[in-house]
């Protein structure tokens, strides 16, 4: 049976990257003074899975490299070596290196092993340093071997008593495969190999559970093999199963025994080693039954796997619909969410068949039932839609997880002491948004570290603790998510920003700017107040990119800062890019949609509310604000019957630059709309953020509130021109 392994490569890479993330986060969490064995174990397991996977798929570079790493971890795990800061640093470097190798392999390139080899040599040096310790450790790692002499004798061979737990097959471990590996191992050094099967614990056929394994085995390996190699084969099951190793004393006595043929793993009879034919002859019923069991097992396991793959594929498909990038990405979705979906689809089917039946024999007396059915259908669809959208939602910890490492490395590099706090890591955010927000966040955190936080001496001089603090905070606010990057550093230096802006000609001397306006200057391209350009930041490329990226996501960024106490960058993002709650409005014959979250209120205009400034620009006093008013019909050049503002509907919306009142003809209903790109086949249109398809199949345009808002100033300008 040959399987095309390459189809699983993607999964392997994904899992390995996840494993690396786990290793990284646990390494960072590791406290040298007080080593938590569970953490070490987690790291070890992650490394081991990567090694195992890489070996399976033939990525020898990776498995070889991981092996060294694993050896060190193993020594730490078994307590023979105290973990030192140096080890953690090295391991972290390895994580980076592995990530690089893996990305190369994923892209189909030959990985660059230079760094890996260097690290490997380094590792071997560290391991060799403690060579005395490590030989001891090898012995300690062999609990069944009594002393060194037997281990020498063990060269003649080994007897392995393997009593698996009953559900060994359910965990996906197939004894046959292990035996085959043992056989390969033995044959590699021209040794022999035989297996005895014990079926004492085999229950009556009627009581037999097809998924359980009732057999146990004794394996004789007559070959010069290392115990550690044998142990490695049983590594996956060692925790659940009873495995004992004994060195074989009478070497070469029974070398003629055939190795186990492929078809016959569960051999029928008890103690003496048997030939394949004997087994079938002695007790064909039992052995056949046992074999059947095994077959069923493996089939079941296979089908399980298929199921899983299918579910995954489905999830992938639902995700991929909206993604057009060529690289295949996938999302891990919890089974709960999928189950929920399946339930909902079930309900949808029921509703559909109910309606279908109703439609076949419909008369007007049943209109009530039809309406009920339609209402139910609407509810089903909405629920389904919500849960499908939820699949795209991931906790923001995916984006946050890289920061502990980043902060650690950077703080070392800058010799600052930093404490990173992350709040609201479970806040869920659309995957697409998440992917795009990562880089801007990294930039902000780097900036905070480099420019925001002072060096320890300066902090103490200013009466603060020497350890600076950076807080990442994510939370929901209205229909959007807010991510704050906060530091308790020196805060933004207003005077310096001003001077710099003057120098660059961004502002003039007479400009009287508010604090907010000054802070906003840092988002101008090429703006940096850092005196020294470091490789961390200070080149002045960045903040403008940060702002642009966030604006592309329909988000906004704000800065607030108190001198001496720190600054807060808060990013506001839409929860999802695909669907929004909209308010439909009518202007002339056209229907437009306002995002519901941006609407402050809707009122009917009266002349008395309005104040006319500069002839064509109206403002309205709304409580304490003066709100500029714009007419959609004017800016969009739509013909409409309405001539003056009296009695018109005014929708007050709030965007990036404050509130603005928008005059429309009529308010229609509210509904959820799916956002479609207008740019894909056309181009960006001012004041329009996208399009959607209404219930009747026609297209309606979605208004970009912030865009409308900046228009108010354009419009004023226009009127200047007209006046002139």
């Amino acid at each position, binding site marked *: 049976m040959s399987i095309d392994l390459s189809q699983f490569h993607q999964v392997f890479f994904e899992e390995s990257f996840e494993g690396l993330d786990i290793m990284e986060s646990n390494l960072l969490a590791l406290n040298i003074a007080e080593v938590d064995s569970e953490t070490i174990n987690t790291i070890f397991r992650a490394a081991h899975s990567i090694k195992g996977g890489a070996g399976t798929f033939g990525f020898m570079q990776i498995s070889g490299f991981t092996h060294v790493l694993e050896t060190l971890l193993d020594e730490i795990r078994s307590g023979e070596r105290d973990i030192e800061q140096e080890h953690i640093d090295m391991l972290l470097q390895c994580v980076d290196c592995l990530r690089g190798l893996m990305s190369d392999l994923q892209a189909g390139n030959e990985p660059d092993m230079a760094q890996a080899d260097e690290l490997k040599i380094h590792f071997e040096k560290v391991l060799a340093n403690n060579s005395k310790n490590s030989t001891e450790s090898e012995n300690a790692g062999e609990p069944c071997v009594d002393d060194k002499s037997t281990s020498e004798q063990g060269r003649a061979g080994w007897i392995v008593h393997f009593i698996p737990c009953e559900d060994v097959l359910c965990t996906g471990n197939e004894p046959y495969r292990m035996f085959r590996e043992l056989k390969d191992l033995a044959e590699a050094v021209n040794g022999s190999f035989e297996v005895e099967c014990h079926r004492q614990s085999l229950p009556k056929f009627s009581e037999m559970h097809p998924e359980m394994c009732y057999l146990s085995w004794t394996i004789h390996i007559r070959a010069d093999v290392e115990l550690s190699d044998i142990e490695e084969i049983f590594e996956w099951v060692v925790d659940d199963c009873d495995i004992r190793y004994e060195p074989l004393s009478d070497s070469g006595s029974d070398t003629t025994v055939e190795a186990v043929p492929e078809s016959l793993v569960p051999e029928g009879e008890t103690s003496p080693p048997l030939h394949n034919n004997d087994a079938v002859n002695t007790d064909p019923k039992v052995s056949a039954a046992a074999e059947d069991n095994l077959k069923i097992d493996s089939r079941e396991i296979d089908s399980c796997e298929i199921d899983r793959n299918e579910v995954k594929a489905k999830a992938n498909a639902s995700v991929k619909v909206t993604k057009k990038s060529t690289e295949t990405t996938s999302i891990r979705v919890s089974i709960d969410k999928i189950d929920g979906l399946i339930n909902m689809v079930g309900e949808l089917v029921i509703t559909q068949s109910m309606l279908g039946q109703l439609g076949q024999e419909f008369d007007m007396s049943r209109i009530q039932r039809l309406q009920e059915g339609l209402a139910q259908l609407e509810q089903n669809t909405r629920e389904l839609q919500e849960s499908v959208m939820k699949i795209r939602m991931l906790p923001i910890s995916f984006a946050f997880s890289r920061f502990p490492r980043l902060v650690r490395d950077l703080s070392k590099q800058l010799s600052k002491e930093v404490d990173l706090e992350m709040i609201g890591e479970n806040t869920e955010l659309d995957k697409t948004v998440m992917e795009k927000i990562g880089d801007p966040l990294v930039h902000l955190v780097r900036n905070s570290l480099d420019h925001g936080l002072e060096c320890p001496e300066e902090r103490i001089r200013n009466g603060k603790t020497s350890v600076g603090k950076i807080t990442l905070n994510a939370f929901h606010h209205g229909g959007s998510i807010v991510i704050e990057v906060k530091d308790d550093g020196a805060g933004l230096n207003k005077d310096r920003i001003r001077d710099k802006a003057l120098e660059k000609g961004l502002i003039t001397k007479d400009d009287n700017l508010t604090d907010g306006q000054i802070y906003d200057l840092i988002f101008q391209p090429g703006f940096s107040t850092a005196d020294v350009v470091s490789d961390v930041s200070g080149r002045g490329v960045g903040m403008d990119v940060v702002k642009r990226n966030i604006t592309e996501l329909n988000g906004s960024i704000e800065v607030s800062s108190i001198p001496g106490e720190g600054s807060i960058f808060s990013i506001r993002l839409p929860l999802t890019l695909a669907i929004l709650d909209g308010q439909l409005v009518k202007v002339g014959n056209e229907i437009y949609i306002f995002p519901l979250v941006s609407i402050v209120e809707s009122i009917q205009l009266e002349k008395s509310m309005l104040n006319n400034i500069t002839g064509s620009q109206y403002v309205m006093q709304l409580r304490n604000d003066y709100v500029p008013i714009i007419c959609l019909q004017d800016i969009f050049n739509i013909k409409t019957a309405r001539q003056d503002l009296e009695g018109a509907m005014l929708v007050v919306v709030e965007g990036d630059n404050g509130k603005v009142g928008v005059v429309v003809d009529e308010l229609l209903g509210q509904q959820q709309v799916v956002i479609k790109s207008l740019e*894909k086949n056309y181009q960006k249109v001012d004041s329009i953020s996208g399009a959607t398809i209404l219930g009747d199949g026609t297209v309606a345009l979605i208004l970009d509130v912030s865009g409308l808002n900046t228009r108010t100033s354009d419009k004023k300008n226009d009127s200047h021109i007209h006046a002139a």
Partner: protein
Amino acid sequence: MNAAQLNNKDADSGHGTDDEQQYLTFIMAGEEYGVDILAVQEIRGWEPTTVIPNAPNYIKGVINLRGTIVPIMDLRSRFNLASVEYSPVTVVIILKIETERGERVMGIVVDAVSEVHAISDSDTQNSPDLIEDLNTEFIKGLVSIEDNMIILLDVNRLLTIDKQLLTLTSELASGLDSESTAEHEENKQ
């Protein structure tokens, strides 16, 4: 290209040369135009569009094409021809091109669809240079078939030049915008 050649050979195996391509021709103001048939996604009847604010006059708006938002261009006004009243038999040809940003789909409104011709590149002539008009940019060449002249259009140009123009104008506009905003900012102070 390959598919086109294959099609050609299937269609009229008699004189299928290597550089032959099939063109869908349509009628507009009495002239016959042709577009590469591989760029044609489908042919539809005219349906009302949703107007895009401040779009050039030849962009009639957008329609919903099975969930995709597709802009519709009136080729008559694009070519500065007199516009005619749309009727139920007015035809929209949906064209699809590959760009570096992915597929672009756009509809063009024409008077009527004519037929499909296999035309070899060697039969086409360049359009005379004397016409100094932007519209000639869309013209790939001229070809005569049974005494009728067919104007072959370059679909990529038709759709991308349009885009360039649009971005150009919008850049100009946004340039103005930012200037005016800055001016306004200053005014405010």
